[in-house]
């Protein structure tokens, strides 16, 4: 078996609520291989978003280790984490989080600017990425001039800007209607088929059906890992429709 691209080892995470420490994760371990398409699921408060944030280097565990691409995130400084996020990961958020003053093109270009990519290459790649997400003709539009689905496509293009091996998605389709949500997931699926590792959180079982593996969490613990073919037939039908 290959070395996992993401290795989560006995992660604990607690939050302080007033004077009390509330555990969010209680010893979660998980290995994700290159090219996996993993969905984190669970009810509210199960710790799925916390785990995703820790995997994405946006949050740090209280205890335990997480290794991504051979680097132990716990040992990295904030600036090193930032560099890792810039080059190794792409993020897609529920509410898109696009830069309001930037056009779609510029939003896609922004991470490349941070990564010191040359102007010509930036232009070529931004154009290609927007084409890829089906917004080749919308590059000069501002986020406020785009629909929710279009904004999320821009967010996907932005997430791919520095060609990261891992894509992290947090309720990517939460603000979208079903049809648009499925379209977005199909796009993500295509990326996975191209070899990209995808880890995403959703509360919508229909969207989980796109994943190759579903990781269920309950009360901060890993409940089970199910292969995609064990997702209910009903949800598959909904997906196909």
């Amino acid at each position, binding site marked *: 078996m290959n070395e996992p691209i993401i290795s989560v080892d006995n992660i604990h995470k607690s939050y302080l609520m007033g004077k009390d420490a509330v555990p969010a994760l209680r010893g979660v371990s998980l290995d994700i291989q290159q090219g996996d398409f993993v969905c984190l699921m669970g009810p509210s408060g199960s710790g799925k978003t916390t785990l995703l*944030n820790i995997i*994405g280097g*946006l*949050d*740090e565990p209280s205890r335990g280790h997480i290794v991504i691409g051979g680097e132990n995130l716990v040992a990295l400084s*904030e*600036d090193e984490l*930032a*560099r*890792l*996020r*810039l*080059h190794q990961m792409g*993020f897609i*958020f529920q509410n898109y*989080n*696009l*830069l*309001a*003053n*930037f056009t779609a093109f*510029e939003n896609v270009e*922004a*991470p490349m*600017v*941070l*990564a*010191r990519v040359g102007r010509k290459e930036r232009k070529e790649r931004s154009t290609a990425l927007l084409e890829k997400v089906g917004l080749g003709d919308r590059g000069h539009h*501002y986020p*406020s*001039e785009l629909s929710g689905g279009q904004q999320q496509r821009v967010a996907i293009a*932005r997430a791919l800007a520095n060609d990261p091996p891992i894509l992290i998605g947090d309720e990517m389709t939460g603000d979208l209607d079903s049809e648009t949500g499925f379209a977005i997931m199909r796009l993500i699926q295509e990326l996975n088929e191209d070899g990209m590792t995808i880890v995403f959180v959703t509360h919508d079982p229909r969207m989980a059906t796109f994943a190759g593996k579903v990781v269920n969490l309950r009360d901060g613990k890993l409940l089970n890992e199910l292969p995609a073919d064990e997702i209910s037939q009903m949800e598959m039908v909904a997906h196909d429709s």
Partner: protein
Amino acid sequence: MILNYVLKNFKRRKVRTILMVLSLMVSTGLIVAMSATVETVRRSNVDLLSSSIGRYDLSVTKKDTSADPFVDINRTAPALTGADPLIVDVFPRLVSDVDLSANGETATATMIARKPEETVGQIDVVSGTLSFENNGMALFESTAEAFGVDIGDEIDVAYSFPRPRVEGEATVVGISQRQVVGRFPVNAIIRQTGVVGLQVSDGLIMDFDQVQSWLGLTGRAGSLIGLVEPELYEAGNAEQAALTVREVVVNVQNTLGEDFNYSLDKAAILDQSSEAFLVLQALINTYGLMAFGVVGLLIHTLVMTNVQEQRREMAVLRILGSQRNLLFAMVMVEVAVIGLIGVAFGIVLGQILTQYAVIPFIEYQMSQAGLNVTIQPAVSLAVILPAVISAFAVLFVSALKPAQDASKTKVMYAINPGVADNIQLEDLEELRVQRPNLRFFVIGLVMMFTVTLVLGLDIVSTLGNPSLEATIFLLAILLMVLGLGLVFLIITRPLERLVLLITGLFSPRLTYFARRNVGRSNKRNALISLLVLFSGVLPSFLATQNAIDTANIETDVKLDMGAPIELIVFTRFSEPELASLDWLQPSFLQSDLGQVEGVERTVGLTHEYTAGISDAVDMRSGSVDLQGVVGDLNEVLFGEMIIFTAGDESALTRIQTEDQAIIISEGLANHLAVPLGGTIKLRGEGLDHLEEFTVIGIVRRLPGFDNFGRIRSQAQNGSTAFVSLDAFHRMSTNPKVALPDANDPVLDRVLATVSPGADVNDVDSALRGEYGFRNRIFTRVAEVRLQQAQDERLQTQLFLIVLTLISFTTAVFGVFAVIYVTIYSRRLEIGMMKAVGSRKWELTGMLIVESIAMTVSAALAGVVAGAVMGYTFAYINNVTSQRPMIFAVDTTVMPFVLIMVVIASIIGTVFSARRIVKYKAIEILRM
């Protein structure tokens, strides 16, 4: 409930609340301090002004035509005391010029003989004891230094008894007078304030009785000085006080009769100064409005942000049944509480500033000017109330719109904010607008046009009320600053691009983000730009004028004086009707002035004689001020400044000897339409006194002679013309009487040069010592004057920097507030940037570049606007005064403005961003 909610809000938004309180505190404090300063100085004005002329209200002397030039104390003093109930004290004095001799030096000084019980003025003892034992004297410090004498040394004092002047005849200079000489020891070396006027620099104080006895003037005095009820001046109305003193002096005149001269200098100077305070107070009021305007914008921005943030909560309150007026009241109460705290602290700050900064500074300045006075600060209700009312009025206006917005909160905000916001197409369009705002430009132009009309048509002076005139004039200036600011706002956009271009060279990545954020946030940009721009216009305007003045100091001094040394008979300015008493003989040039070490060449100019002038056939006529020239002006004038329209400098040499020649101005030549070599007719003293002269030179500019110019309308009745001394004598003398002697005193001005290698300061001292007091001749040395003018400019520059500092203090708060709100409202964007890999320093750097681009471009626009206004004013001024002008760029205040803006931006950004960039990306995104 409302107050409880408001107080909780303060707790939630500490930084914003502190910012609002601080800005109010600082602006209120500054305005209270400035108003208190004006009030303090106004109240101290009587003391200050009287210090410069002597702190008594009236003086009575005998007329110089009286048979007995001395006042009979026993008869006059009681009459004076009883003349008006407001007169509370009368003291006899004998004040006169005396010749002092000691250590081989002789000079003229003022002797002040006064009673020991006299309370007028303040005497500070430098050394020795202030007593008049052993016939001793108290010598002025400057006089002691000049003679090199110390305590215990003796000085010879020579007093010349005055001789009555024959009525209708001038006093003949040089006539022998009875002189008494005495030798007196120096008991004290002193400085005086208000015993006599500041113009008395050399003098001594002696005991009145002792001097009476020495001069044999028992029972008599040179003058009686009177003091009126001091409460008269405490009412605060200087003009009224002056008029009351005049009434008192009228009563004295009615009592004592026509044999006396009455002087009420203090009332006169007080009367003149009253208007200056009106202007000063109007300036403070105008500045106060500007400062509060900036604070108003700041508070409006912050409160509006608060309202936008609280929208959801307010919508929930609406769902729960809250009335609209409750939401309105919540905002208004919040602002009112902030106002109460800020203004209260501001008043305290104002008092502290006045007490511990402004008053000591004024006292220091006064002491530098020779006035040793103690000023009591006056922070009264009358000073505080206008600032408080203005502050609350501005607060009310600033809070009105946010409060109205709050009251209009829809319940939908709690359910679906996106729908409630109801973004329109024009809102989206605004994101794309990158063109300059033409609306502001047009408003600015309208303002400028209004100001031009008001000032150009001189409407203000028709109002007749000095206070109203001053206020309207300054409001017009304020309007002009605002108008000019709005007009120049249009260039902030290109300047932003320029600044970003420059920052892009150093940091392309940070500039990439800043360029987009700056260029596409119109409302925020306009607000911050206006805050900075308005604050930059006035200091830049004043600084440009100062820079131009500084660059032109040498030119101005040369054009004013005409030659390296200038001597003018003092009475020409002070008492023109008596000037003839002090005119100098032509022989003075060689036999007297020429002997002073360091003086090389000399040229004399006669007093002006106004003659009629016309062309050869009287078609065009006017009048001209004739001056006879004794000497070759080419030898003394600053040659590089001379411009002849026709003829050349040789005319200045020829004019001495060519009896029927004349040099006239270009304006007059144009008026008379007379060319070089043409003939003009002069109408001199007496009937049928006409002579023809040939024009040998037409002058456009002659240094030292303002009335040689090119403007025809001015020249018609007011230009100067040169003729020879003989011609001058002829034209100014009735043909029916004999011509004056060639050496008769007719000169009232002398121009000279400094010998090569001579020390100009020594020459200046020598001339002042030789002629300053003894002959009542005003002396100036160009190089010394130049140095003084340069020193004065440095002081002005310091004042401007202080003004800029004050002006920008409120602007800095504005910048700070806008940046703070901007960063706060963009926290999600910052979170996202962190999530995708931005580091802390990159985010801070990006925000700093944004702030700098916005503020520096606005400051540059303000500087350009101020400089343009400064250059325009200076150009117009120089054109009308027909002077050349060297354009100059201020290198102190304007860079200071830019540096302050950059520092404010960096500090404001770092402070505002420091917390948000420290948060983890996920923490920010969860907010």
